[in-house]
């Protein structure tokens, strides 16, 4: 065979930058880079000119000015005398709280609906299909607005709860009554729920830039410690089982470890519940949960649950029938088959799209503005922006914060995903 050794070693010509695949990619990349740099320079130049024309400068000093506005829902202390930075923090916490509860409710609801949709029961699976299609094909904004309007327009006024002397004498019931053993009152101003109080709380620790609620963190620490000790206990029980074949009885130890320390701590701190009660024209005591929060959480959970249900259904259906048949052949009962064979495998399919649903939910909390929920978007991108007139800084900061939240959530969930993925050995 003749071997073509005499390939002409042509010298470099300019046209090779376009026509030779060895060099073309460099040409393209350089062109792209130059275009990109030009675009960035153009944008920056425009921005500088525009800022100059408006007599504004680019700095974040405004964050330390007095905010001067009130925020309805504040989980960390805040008054309108605090600075904008504090207001932004309050907003961020509000965003995270809605996202947190939304994710929990949506997951629970979504898993239940997804499993029920696969149920052999015709009626129930049809109902769940209707639910999923209904929520997936209608904008989230509609669900938020509708829940808010229903909560604030159909619920009774606080005075409807009043029992006057004449009514008591006549044995009449008031127009509205509290729910859940007289602990929760849903009025048109918000939902009054009982609040936890401590007679001998640990107070707060002031760190200068922020203050820590020691009572809260003490409880969190004790719970975390209990869970950790309980896991150690279970691990040692498993070790014993694998060594001897007998599993020591652990359930009462678990219960003791999990609950006794917390209860002891609560008793020691004088824990009691303050139940809201009607005084004058409104309910006093307890915590007033604004309808904007409730509506946003409900709507986000219901909407995202429909998507999660589809993910769960697809995940379970992705496991081949052979797996459950093999489990039955091994003599496993149906619920153990589910928990030991199907779910662990289905989780691998479910988790990646679930992560993106959590991300979506978190980003969708920004729709809270439709019901005037003061989250990050409402404080930093809303009132602070309007008061200080610093669109550029506020928007950039807000995008940065959302981006960070998204990245953190996806990193955490990807770590978890890695831990359940198939370990190839």
């Amino acid at each position, binding site marked *: 065979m003749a071997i073509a050794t005499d390939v002409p070693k042509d010298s470099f010509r300019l046209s090779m930058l376009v026509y030779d695949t060895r060099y073309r990619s460099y040409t393209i990349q350089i062109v792209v880079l130059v275009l990109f740099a030009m675009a960035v320079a153009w944008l920056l130049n425009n921005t500088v000119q525009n800022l100059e024309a408006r007599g504004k400068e680019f700095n974040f000093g405004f964050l330390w000015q007095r905010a001067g506005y009130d925020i309805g829902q504040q989980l960390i202390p805040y008054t309108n005398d605090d600075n904008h930075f504090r207001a932004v923090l309050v907003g961020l916490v509000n965003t995270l709280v809605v996202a947190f509860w939304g994710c929990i409710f949506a997951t629970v609801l979504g898993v239940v609906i997804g499993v029920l949709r696969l*149920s052999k029961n*015709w*009626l129930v699976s049809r109902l769940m299909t209707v639910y999923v299609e209904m929520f997936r*094909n209608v904008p989230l904004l509609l669900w938020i607005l509708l829940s808010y309007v229903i909560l604030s327009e159909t619920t009774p006024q606080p005075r409807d709860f009043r029992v006057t002397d004449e009514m008591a004498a006549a044995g009449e019931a008031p127009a509205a009554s509290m729910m859940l053993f007289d602990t929760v009152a849903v009025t048109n101003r918000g939902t009054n729920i009982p609040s936890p109080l401590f007679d001998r709380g640990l107070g707060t620790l002031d760190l200068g830039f922020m203050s820590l609620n020691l009572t809260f963190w003490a409880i969190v620490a004790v719970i975390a410690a209990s869970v950790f000790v309980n896991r150690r206990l279970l691990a040692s029980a498993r070790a014993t089982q694998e060594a001897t074949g007998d599993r020591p009885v652990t359930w009462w130890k678990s219960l003791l470890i999990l609950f006794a320390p917390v209860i002891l701590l609560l008793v020691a701190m004088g824990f009691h519940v303050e139940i809201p009660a009607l005084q004058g024209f409104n309910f006093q005591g307890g915590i007033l949960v604004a309808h904007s929060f409730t509506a946003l959480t409900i709507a986000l959970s219901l909407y995202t649950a429909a998507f999660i249900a589809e993910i769960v259904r697809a995940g379970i259906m992705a496991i081949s029938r052979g797996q459950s048949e093999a489990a039955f052949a091994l003599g496993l009962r149906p619920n153990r088959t589910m928990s030991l064979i199907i779910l662990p495998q289905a989780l691998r399919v479910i988790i990646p799209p679930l992560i993106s649903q959590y991300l979506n939910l978190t980003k969708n909390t920004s729709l809270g503005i439709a019901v005037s929920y003061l989250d990050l978007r409402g404080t930093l991108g809303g009132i602070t922006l309007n008061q200080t007139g610093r669109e550029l800084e506020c*928007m950039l900061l807000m995008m940065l914060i959302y981006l960070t939240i998204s990245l953190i959530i996806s990193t955490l969930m990807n770590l978890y995903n890695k831990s359940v993925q198939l370990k190839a050995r």
Partner: protein
Amino acid sequence: MSETHAQTVTFVRDSMLPPAPPPVGERGAVKWLRENLFSTPLNIALTVLGILAIYLLLRAALPWWLNSVWNANSLAECRAIVEASAGEGATGACWAMIRQWWGAFIFGFYPPDQWWRPIIAFGYLFAALAPVLFAGQKRMLTILLGAVTAFLLVSLWLADTPGVPFVLAVVLVLGLLAMAQVMPGKLLWFTLIYPALTFWLLWGGSVWSPIVAMAGFGVLYAVFRFGSPFIGLAPAAGAGVVAAVLWWLYIDIPVVNVLQGILPLGLQAINSDQFGGFLLAIVIGVTGISFSLPIGILLALGRQSDMLIVKTLSVGFIEFIRGVPLITLLFTASLLLQYFLPPGTNFDIILRVIILVTFFAAAYLAEVIRGGLAALPRGQYEAADALGLDYWRAQRLIILPQALKISIPAIVSTFIGLFKDTTLVAFVGLMDPLKGVTQIVRADIDWKGIYWEPYIFVGVIFFLICFGMSRYSMYLERKLKTDHR
């Protein structure tokens, strides 16, 4: 033994009994009920719960639905009518609100005497989509175009369309219908003209501006066509783009002015803030969908590319857009774009929103398409290389058709998401059907306190459109299915 046995038999059945029907519990409705509703205690409980839920829902909603009032001028009047007919304390839906406000829900503040323009644009939308959706299927094309004709005839007549546009619109669609019979392939030309036509129909103004703007593409093609024999394909394409941009920047407006001076033809100009309702949602949704797909494909290819810089830029763009909520991007459109553009530029808010929505959807589409690209077996890429196809040919002929087919369901759900997200434009002051129009209705003194009816009305329309899209994607999946399972 067998002999004795044969002899002891005294009776041998010589005719078979007719087959007995299965027991009652094993046939018909009873069997179905038993298997599907009452098979286990858990199932029985679920069924009971389901029936209870349906019952409660019906008990609450059915009287309300049955007591609907279609003719009234205010909510109070509605309630009075319901109480008069159904008794004290009865509730009833007040659809009369829809009768009074449907124009705002559909068209926003678009002047009522010009409603025929969005109607024509909407009808033609399907005529333009037809060759894309049902390529080469003469029967489906005919059905769809026939439906468009019927829709245009009826709704244009209802909207009191002036004679000339009425006749022109119907003649054009009949022409398309005839074309579908003779040369269905050529229908795509209408799809290409459609954006300019719609832009002119909806926003009005001189007829020459869309024509001259479209001529820019003609300039691009001409330069490319006549330049390529002399300077090669790539430089000719580059020169074409430069020529087109120069055309749009410097030649466009003077030419339009001259032509308008010679032959003033045009429609009444409509301002962007007069757009609203579903008109706005569909304008943003359709434009976003049609532009986000190509951008999304390019981004996905960029992300899969071997070129480091292209890849980094694509990844950065995609991850940035996907990491922030759409609302922040819309606010960027309304507040920040004025900082990023040369001082004094001020372009249309709807256009700005469309650009940002398109980018948003494109980033999501890019991820979806990347999934499709990743799902293709390596062998397909290698086969394309072995055939000697260059990068773009390989993508166009081998890779993308398969990758897009795999990702159809996800692409369509991204589109559905985009269409639902058009409601968010309410936050930058545009009048979307959900928040914008409904708020106006609810602020009206006559209809204060109404909430179920407007939300149900808007929700049902959104549901129909989105559900239709998802059904179409299922049809497409079935049609394109090539495996033999």
